[in-house]
């Protein structure tokens, strides 16, 4: 923060030391220095503001605010004060106050370009589009510079975009914006490319495609030079909107001749071709088909065009492009869709794909390319295809283990591609158990053999043969899910740990390990894995769910809290970041980016995951902290929780989860479908609703239970209490309804692909009885509250009701606890068995117990808590006693000594993690038990 203005200004000299202290983070000294200065110069307002900044930064928000307001009410017009206040308000997250500041300044100094411009930006920061429009105009009238005029126009476009009523956008805002631009066009005042871009945006949004097209093709379009192919791209877009298929076709053709690798133009070329065929279009005259040149209208022309492109590539000495060969497969695909017999002219898809593999099989992308067109092969050709591909892979002589290996990385890549294709075709899935185990042996041999090619790889680079290792893991998972043999899972973990030891940067290894540990209920190793993934910004939203779904539910409360915080920090910073750059985009005329920035921000604000972590974070704090370190009421107040308010955008929830972040080579029928996505979002939303209602109920309970002077309250206070208890009642019936919906959803028993989204906690929350326990406990609290208002004398009915609810709650809790019994980890016949669901149920037991503890009845509860504690202690003891070293590994399926080591390490991690969860759960229960004991009747 630097003092601006003239060096001569003596005030600048006086203020300098304070700025310096603030810049260096020495807030105390800044405050002292400001005080000193203010003693001598009472009217040096800026010193006050700088002092306020110091106060704000040392946590004295209230003092800072009132000091700032002292200055603000004087409506300062000196640069120093204005800038300092702007900074202060921004740090206070009160950007709306900046607008007030400059509104006053502009009134006092109406000819200041600088203040007008600050005012515009201040409005931009808070998204006041109408005021931006006016401020932009006022600015232009003060200083007639084009950018200011167009700031105002853009603000009209923003009003259109944000209008709830689309009609208003179409009939008012956009036409007005259009007229404003037209005026400048008529007066020949258009200067910059940005202005033309904006004009185009307006016409496009108005659906005036013909006008937009004319504009782009005309003299104004000549200004569109920064972006490559800007005019062509815009024309193409308009041709498509206007369904001008001849132009679309001809332009695509032209652009493809120039660059035969531009995929999007093959698509528009084919699209337009078939539209023209459907319309039996023929050119109006032979010489000129359309303004863009020659048009193709027959399959024969298209076939020839594609074949010619391939021949061009074949002739080239340099690296061939993939585009033409892929276009050939795409054309076959489209012809087949239309039932058109001409596809034979292009050749047999099997031969074409083999040809493609011959040319590009040594590139890692070959699999992603071919995968798209595998459906062109009939199933009876699959094995033949695999065999023929195999013939194109140069492998060395078959050794004594029965395998031949590739001699270099190109051959390795080809072999790998065949393995992947075989999996995508489903050929691995049809193998029986024995076949799958043989496949594992083969893939492992290739994996280990291939490691020699990557000996000189840096730690940050991947091993060439990593994909083999990942495929081994996938086959193990197949075996585990099909047979239920946990040994397969342990070996899977082992092979992934081994892979990671050779290739420590492989994110796919980490992701799969992370998923498996979570499914196993072992959260501890997950923390390190996730942090080594080095997830950045948006990833906290897209893959954060992998972590936050399990953290709390497995009883790792500290880790859970940490992971929620990671995500929340990202979401909160996003808001501030985007505002700054929206302003930058205005300054530089990057108008088309502004709606993008705003859409991005909205998408994050409406994120399912954001709402989840927000809710879970507060619930976790209440469950683990409230009534232990502080009262429930204090906790609720500190969180700023308001039970009447629901801040979750239920109708616009955005599922930003990346559900295909884990590689999968599963065939189409096993892939994640849109229906899966829909069901998963539905399930998560209902679970979120249960959680958010629970949270609001807790808040409502806290504020109600501790309402002041309940008994002798005057009328208003009584009304206050009853208003709150009716909130409680409303929320309770909402919870009840939600639980009914939840029951219907869990009846569907949706199964997702293994590598797809994890199931929500909904099903286990319901089946464990936890949800109903919580609801009962909350209902009981409400009844207790009624008892307090009614008074003990006239409430015998209520008292009986309470007594019964209480008994039934205790029975429910007892049942819930009994579902936790059993061993989470045990050794049977030298096999290690896990029951992670027990851990999850235990967490489900703890939550309502904690909740029940808020009420002033405890006797039987103490009994149950003691039982639970005994169970936890017992589990801890048996876990500690479990000596995994005694386990003989490698039984049944041959594992080398080294592989056993990795498997054992994974087992140790699971054991330690279970122990960690139990300890955290035990601690929480013990604290709860203590606070129960200390309660007095």
């Amino acid at each position, binding site marked *: 923060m630097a003092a601006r203005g003239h060096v001569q200004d003596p005030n600048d000299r006086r203020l300098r030391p304070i700025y310096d202290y603030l810049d260096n983070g020495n807030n105390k000294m800044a405050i002292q220095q400001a005080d000193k200065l203010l003693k001598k110069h009472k009217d040096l307002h800026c010193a006050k503001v700088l002092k306020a900044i110091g106060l704000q930064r040392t946590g004295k928000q209230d003092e800072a605010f009132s000091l700032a307001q002292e200055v603000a009410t004087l409506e300062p017009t000196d640069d120093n004060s204005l800038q300092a206040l702007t900074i202060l308000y921004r740090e206070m997250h009160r950007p709306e106050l900046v607008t007030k500041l400059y509104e006053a300044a502009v009134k006092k100094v109406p000819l200041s370009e600088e203040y007008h411009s600050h005012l515009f930006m201040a409005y931009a920061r808070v998204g006041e589009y109408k005021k931006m429009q006016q401020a932009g105009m006022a600015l232009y009238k003060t200083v007639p510079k084009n950018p200011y005029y167009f700031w105002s126009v853009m603000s009209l476009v923003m009003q259109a975009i944000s209008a709830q009523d689309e009609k208003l956008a179409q009939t008012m805002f956009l036409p007005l914006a259009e007229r404003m631009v037209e005026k400048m066009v008529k007066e020949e005042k258009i200067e910059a490319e940005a202005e033309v871009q904006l004009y185009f945006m307006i016409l496009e949004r108005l659906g005036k495609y013909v006008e937009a097209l004319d504009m782009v093709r005309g003299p104004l379009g000549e200004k569109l*030079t*920064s*972006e*490559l192919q*800007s005019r062509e791209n815009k024309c193409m877009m308009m041709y498509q909107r206007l369904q001008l298929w001849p132009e679309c076709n001809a332009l695509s053709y032209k652009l493809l001749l120039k660059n035969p*690798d*531009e*995929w*999007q133009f*093959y698509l528009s070329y084919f699209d337009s071709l078939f539209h023209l065929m459907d319309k039996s279009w023929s050119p109006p005259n032979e010489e000129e088909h359309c303004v863009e040149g020659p048009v193709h209208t027959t399959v024969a022309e298209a076939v020839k065009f594609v074949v010619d492109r391939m021949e061009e590539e074949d002739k080239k000495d340099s*690296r061939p*492009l*993939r*585009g*033409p060969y*892929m*276009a050939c497969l*795409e054309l076959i695909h489209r012809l087949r869709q239309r039932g058109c017999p001409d596809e034979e002219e292009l050749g047999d898809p099997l031969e074409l794909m083999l040809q493609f593999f011959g040319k590009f099989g040594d*590139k*890692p*992308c070959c699999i*992603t*390319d071919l*995968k*798209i067109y595998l459906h062109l092969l009939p199933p009876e050709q699959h094995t033949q295809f695999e065999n023929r591909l195999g013939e194109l892979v140069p492998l060395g002589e078959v050794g004594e283990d029965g395998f031949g290996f590739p001699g270099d990385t190109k051959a390795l890549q080809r072999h790998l591609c065949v393995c992947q294709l075989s999996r995508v075709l489903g050929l691995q899935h049809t193998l029986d158990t024995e076949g799958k185990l043989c496949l594992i042996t083969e893939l492992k041999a290739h994996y280990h053999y291939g490691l020699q090619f990557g000996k000189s790889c840096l730690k940050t680079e*991947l091993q060439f043969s990593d994909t083999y290792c990942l495929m081994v893991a996938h086959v193990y998972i197949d075996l585990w899910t099909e047979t239920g043999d946990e040994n397969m899972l342990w070996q899977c973990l082992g092979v992934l740990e081994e892979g990671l030891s050779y290739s420590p940067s492989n994110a796919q290894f980490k992701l799969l390990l992370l998923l498996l540990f979570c499914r196993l209920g072992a959260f501890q190793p997950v923390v390190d894995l996730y942090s080594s993934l080095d997830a*950045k*910004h*948006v*990833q906290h*939203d*897209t893959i954060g769910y992998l972590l936050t779904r399990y953290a709390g539910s497995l009883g790792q409360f500290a880790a859970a809290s940490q992971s929620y915080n990671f995500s929340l920090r990202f979401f909160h910073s*996003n808001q501030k*970041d*985007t505002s*700054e*750059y*929206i302003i*930058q*985009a205005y*300054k*530089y005329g*990057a108008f*088309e*980016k502004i709606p*993008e*920035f705003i*859409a*991005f921000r909205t*998408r994050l604000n409406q994120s399912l995951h954001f709402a989840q972590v927000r809710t879970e974070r507060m619930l976790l704090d209440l469950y683990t902290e409230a009534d232990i370190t502080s009262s429930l009421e204090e906790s609720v107040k500190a969180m700023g929780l308001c039970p009447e308010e629901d801040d979750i955008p239920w109708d616009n929830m955005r599922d*930003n989860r*990346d559900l295909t972040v884990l590689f999968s080579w599963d065939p189409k029928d096993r892939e994640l479908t849109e229906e899966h996505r829909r069901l998963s979002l539905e399930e998560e939303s209902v679970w979120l609703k249960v959680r958010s209602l629970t949270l609001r109920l807790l808040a409502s309970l806290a504020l109600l239970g501790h309402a002041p002077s309940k008994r002798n309250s005057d009328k208003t206070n009584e009304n206050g209490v009853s208003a709150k208890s009716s909130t409680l009642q409303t929320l309770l019936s909402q919870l009840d309804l939600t639980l009914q919906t939840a029951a219907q959803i869990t009846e569907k028993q949706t199964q997702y692909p293994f590598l797809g989204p994890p199931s929500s906690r909904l099903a286990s929350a319901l089946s464990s009885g936890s949800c109903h326990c919580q609801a009962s406990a909350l209902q009981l609290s409400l009844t207790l509250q009624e008892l307090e208002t009614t008074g003990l004398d006239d409430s015998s009915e209520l008292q009986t009701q309470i007594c019964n609810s209480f008994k039934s709650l205790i029975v429910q809790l007892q049942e819930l606890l009994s579902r936790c019994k059993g061993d989470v980890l045990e050794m049977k016949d030298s096999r290690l068995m896990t029951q992670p669901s027990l851990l999850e149920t235990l967490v489900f037991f703890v939550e309502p117990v904690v909740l029940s503890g808020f009420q002033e009845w405890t006797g039987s509860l103490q009994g149950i808590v003691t039982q639970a504690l005994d169970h936890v202690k017992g589990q801890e003891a048996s876990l500690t006693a479990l000596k995994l070293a005694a386990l003989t590994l490698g039984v049944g399926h041959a594992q080398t000594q080294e592989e056993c080591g990795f498997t054992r390490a994974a087992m140790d991690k699971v054991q330690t993690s279970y122990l960690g969860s139990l300890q955290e759960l035990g601690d929480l229960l013990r604290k709860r038990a203590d606070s129960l004991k200390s309660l007095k009747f």
Partner: protein
Amino acid sequence: MTTLRAFTFNFDICYNNYGIPFYLQYLAHWPEYFIVAEAPGGELMGYIMGKAEGSVAREEWHGHVTALSVAPEFRRLGLAAKLMEMLEEISERKGGFFVDLFVRVSNQVAVNMYKQLGYSVYRTVIEYYSASNGEPDEDAYDMRKALSRDTERKSIIPIPHPVRPEDIE
């Protein structure tokens, strides 16, 4: 084969390495310099991001490559070269004298690739890359390629002495 398009600011960003403000800054200022390549299946193959800067009067107006990244599965397809070619074309249109970029001296693969694309080492910048976890900071090569406006190719005459990061503009 590839679809090359202007970067629309969306969740594509999640595969990239910098903080969101960094991208926003570039998009707000030089949107034309941000190009992504997309595979037919929709996968993000790679992207390039750059800017135009420098004084025209001192013949230092130029295009700068800030980031160039190609996903591992899409390497060895010539995509980096294609993206570089596009950035150079944009810089040509803006009337730049040259295009420059910084690269770790240890990144031999990248240095060789840029040499193949016509770039040469203009100077070494000492300790340009600050290292984490206790390893020493690393030097950068400032590599340049002259554009057609620099007819005498003055902008790429190497500076023999290494410079410090604070001395570059």
